[in-house]
């Protein structure tokens, strides 16, 4: 079973997507998962990054623990285009089970590096083949036979170092970083790298044109994955409570909390100022989050599709009972269990409307590492300001792959704890207040926290109908007024959520609208289209409900292409409902096969529809 024959489907006819040879190609590493290739692959990415070459990897891994094929695609691009491409130039064929197919799918003129114990039934003349005697090299390097499996992948690192020019110092540095300075494993791994390089120098004749060169395309940047960025953002947002249930691809977000909280908020006298609870399931996780949010903690969870489905009932309660909480959804392919290790943007519409009855949520849509960090803290401010669950929709591509980014910026505003009445406030009000009164005309009521010592502070939280005093009510007018206030609150949310990011180009009639992880492919496609004489503007929305930036963008473009990784064009649907007058000008470029978007898809899609 190979994914690559599809990845490599030559859809690049007439494309401008012809790579160069220096700092401009893609490497696909085919291995078996559980074989430790993550270390080797990460090393390559880090070395390229440290050599100043813009880089972004995409890890296409299977949904099991070990023994199945996995592909890791590294794109290097001197111009900073790092979206996935549909083909790669360099194949590291280290998985015998897929080697044949992987080779068959390589582009003509490509390069194949493989251990010499693989015998291809159909070798290719139009591909440069480098056989590497992996076993022999490890033997020569005197690697303990028991440990050879662990370091075998350093063979292809060494081969690539020799053939393409990864710098040895950067590789060593990378190993030091990875092994946290432990010399022994670093030496052992380097030993294999160097031995391979030595062997290659002696035995391989470089006959392909690809190579990398140090440049300055990554100055001042850092590298991180979106889940860690989100966790760090949450920590700088003052998270005090997290409840979660493990699920790919969200688990590493909570791992990030567990890794960084002890460093950034170290236990004092052995006690922690945060609580992280592994719940028994997602129903419990969100229940705990709402309980903690209600009692005044900055509380969060992270999950993915199936967990979102299980949170439906509580999500509706959080909306209706007006309880803050932050819920990260690292999107993977659904419906159902779907493809747990593949990326998607198809939870957008279900999350916006999550809950039976008339429910609409505030949803943040980070598109890059900085936003994962920023929305990590801002989500708490919004949740407490708006007294409502705030969803943050990331995806597997953002969350689990490493991305270059500018360094994170410190929050530009103090924590916003929202409208909380203290005992003193209540004293000043002579104890007169109503939990669900719209005092300020923004639809957001005031709340008190349990523990408030004022005798009038208490109120009763419930998912049933209530009046402004939080007293049970079945009165039609109470219901309607309350829901109208919630509607007003949603309108207030519209004005304070992160605004869309717009890049306008002179004279562009075409507007592209998207969200999240797809912008790299879109940016690249836009440049390609420009080269073909088609100017486009781009509006990347960053939250639901939509705000005015989107409206203005729509109003100032003739044709609008909504680009997304969803079978049913969910984003387009929501925009159509937001701007019904422009429904027919909102064209859809939507598909979902579990892989990150490519510039090709966007460019070809737009060309096709434009030429119609």
């Amino acid at each position, binding site marked *: 079973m190979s994914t690559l024959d599809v990845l490599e489907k030559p859809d690049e006819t007439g494309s401008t997507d012809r790579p160069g040879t220096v700092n401009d190609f893609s490497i696909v590493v085919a291995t078996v998962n559980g074989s430790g290739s993550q270390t080797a692959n990460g090393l390559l990415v880090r070395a390229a990054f440290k050599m100043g070459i813009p880089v972004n990897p995409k890890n296409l891994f299977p949904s099991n623990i070990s023994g199945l094929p996995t592909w890791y695609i590294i794109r290097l691009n001197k111009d900073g285009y790092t979206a996935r491409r549909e083909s790669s130039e360099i194949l590291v064929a280290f998985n015998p089970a897929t080697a044949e197919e992987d080779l068959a799918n390589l582009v003509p003129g490509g390069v194949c590096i493989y251990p010499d114990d693989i015998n291809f039934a159909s070798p290719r003349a139009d591909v440069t083949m480098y056989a590497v005697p992996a076993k022999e090299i490890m033997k020569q390097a005197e690697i303990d036979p028991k440990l050879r499996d662990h370091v075998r992948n350093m063979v292809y690192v060494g081969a690539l170092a020799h053939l393409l020019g990864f710098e040895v110092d950067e590789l060593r540095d990378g190993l030091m970083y990875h092994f946290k300075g432990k010399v022994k494993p670093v030496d052992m791994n380097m030993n294999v790298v160097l031995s391979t390089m030595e062997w290659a120098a002696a035995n391989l004749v470089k006959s392909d044109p690809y190579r990398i060169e140090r440049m300055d395309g990554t100055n001042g940047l850092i590298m991180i994955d979106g889940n860690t960025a989100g966790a760090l953002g949450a920590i700088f947002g003052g998270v005090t409570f997290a409840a979660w249930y493990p699920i790919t691809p969200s688990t590493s977000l909570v791992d990030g909390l567990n890794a960084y909280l002890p460093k950034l*908020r170290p236990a004092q006298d052995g006690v922690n100022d945060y609580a992280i609870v592994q719940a028994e399931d997602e129903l419990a996780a969100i229940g705990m989050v709402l309980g*903690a949010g209600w009692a005044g903690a900055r509380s969060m969870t992270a999950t993915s599709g199936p967990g979102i489905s299980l949170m439906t009932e509580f999500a509706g309660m959080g909306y209706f009972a007006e309880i803050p909480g932050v819920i990260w959804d690292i999107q993977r392919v659904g419906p159902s269990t779907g493809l747990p290790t593949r990326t998607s943007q198809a939870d957008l519409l279900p999350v916006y409307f999550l809950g039976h009855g008339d429910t609409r949520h505030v949803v943040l849509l980070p598109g890059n590492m900085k936003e994962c960090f920023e929305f990590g803290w801002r989500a708490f401010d919004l949740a407490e300001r708006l007294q409502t669950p705030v969803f943050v929709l990331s995806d597997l591509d953002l969350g689990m792959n490493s991305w270059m980014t500018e360094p994170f910026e410190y929050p530009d505003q103090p924590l916003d704890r929202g409208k909380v009445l203290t005992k003193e406030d209540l004293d000043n009000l002579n104890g007169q207040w109503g939990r669900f009164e719209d005092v300020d005309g923004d639809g957001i009521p005031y709340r008190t926290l349990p*523990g408030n010592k004022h005798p009038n502070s208490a109120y009763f939280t419930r998912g049933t109908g209530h009046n402004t005093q939080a007293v049970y009510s079945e009165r039609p007018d109470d219901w309607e007024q309350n829901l109208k206030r919630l509607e007003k609150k949603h309108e207030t949310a519209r004005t304070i959520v992160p605004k869309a990011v717009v890049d306008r180009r002179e004279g562009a009639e075409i507007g592209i609208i998207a969200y999240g992880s797809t912008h790299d492919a879109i940016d690249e496609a836009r440049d390609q289209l420009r080269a073909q004489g088609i100017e486009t503007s781009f509006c990347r929305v960053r939250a639901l409900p939509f705000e005015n930036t989107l409206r203005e963008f729509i109003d100032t473009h003739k044709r609008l292409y909504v680009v997304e990784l969803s079978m049913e064009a969910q984003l387009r649907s929501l925009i159509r409902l937001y701007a019904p007058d422009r429904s027919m000008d909102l064209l859809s470029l939507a598909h979902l096969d579990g892989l990150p978007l490519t510039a090709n898809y966007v460019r070809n899609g737009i060309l096709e529809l434009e030429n119609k």
Partner: protein
Amino acid sequence: MVATATQTEGRRDKVNLIGLEKGDYRGRPSTLCSGCGHDSISSQIISVAWELSLKPYEVIKMSGIGCSSKSPAYFLNRSHGFNALHGRMPSVVTGASLANRSLVPIAVSGDGDTGSIGLGQYKHLLRRNVPMVYIIENNGVYGLTKGQFSATADVGQKLKYAGVNELPPIDLCLEAIAADCGFVARSFSGDAKQVRELLKAAISFNGTAVIDIISPCVTFNNHEESTKSYPYGKANEEPLHDITFIPKYDEISVDYEPGEQITVQMHGGPAIRLKKIDREYDPTDKMSAIKLLLEAESNQDFVTGLIYFDEKRGTIQDVLSLDQTPLAELPAERIRPSREALAKLNAELA
């Protein structure tokens, strides 16, 4: 779980030690059927809170969905309340208790809420030992949806609506013991004094304290043959012992007679005195507790009292080494790391 439990020592003053009248512990008027067992439990909660001089602002009232779960609206008006979703109170209280460990959760659930839809959360709450009082108002029936069997209905129990039950009951006390809960009691809403003493002890317990109170549904399950009815309870209740809660152990006076009573010392000072009635019973022995429950079930004995006690296990706060300051009250300086920390982090990631 709570240091606030101090007692008026039987004085019948109008105000308690913190200057509150009993009325200050009342709730809104009940909307339950008149005579419903749940209402008498609410009354006992009010009495006990007043007697113990609980600070209303330190209590939170938690519940799921059902007639029983409505009742927190009918006591302690001055305490915050959270009427959650059906079967999901345990998770909500876990979050709230961790967010603010100085709060004393008094939670009310029903047999449907806990035994059917909520069984998983119930067991996992107990496993975590969230410090709280967990009251199950157990009537063997779904009151609010008009009379279906719950999972605690006895085999052979008849209901007008639902016919005869043939599935074995889930014993929520046995489930609690299996989940390593350290305070497991059964009572009868018709036995006001026992309910009160158990509540007092439960409030002082450092961990989850479960009280499974048979609380008749007068509308759907109160015919004489029903093991969850008033007539049956009145006729068949077999208290294991006469329970008295003693706020401070050293106050225990002279009346100790070997073999006649057991005194269970609690964390932080108080104690529970169990005076023998018919049988010898030591609630600190797990096997005896289980045996008692299994035999009671097969003989259809309606045994009440403190069934199991063991205060050894740490609470979830202990397991998480949690700060004494409520998380909800931590100031911004403590929870948002500094600019310098971020700069350092950025540098590390470069």
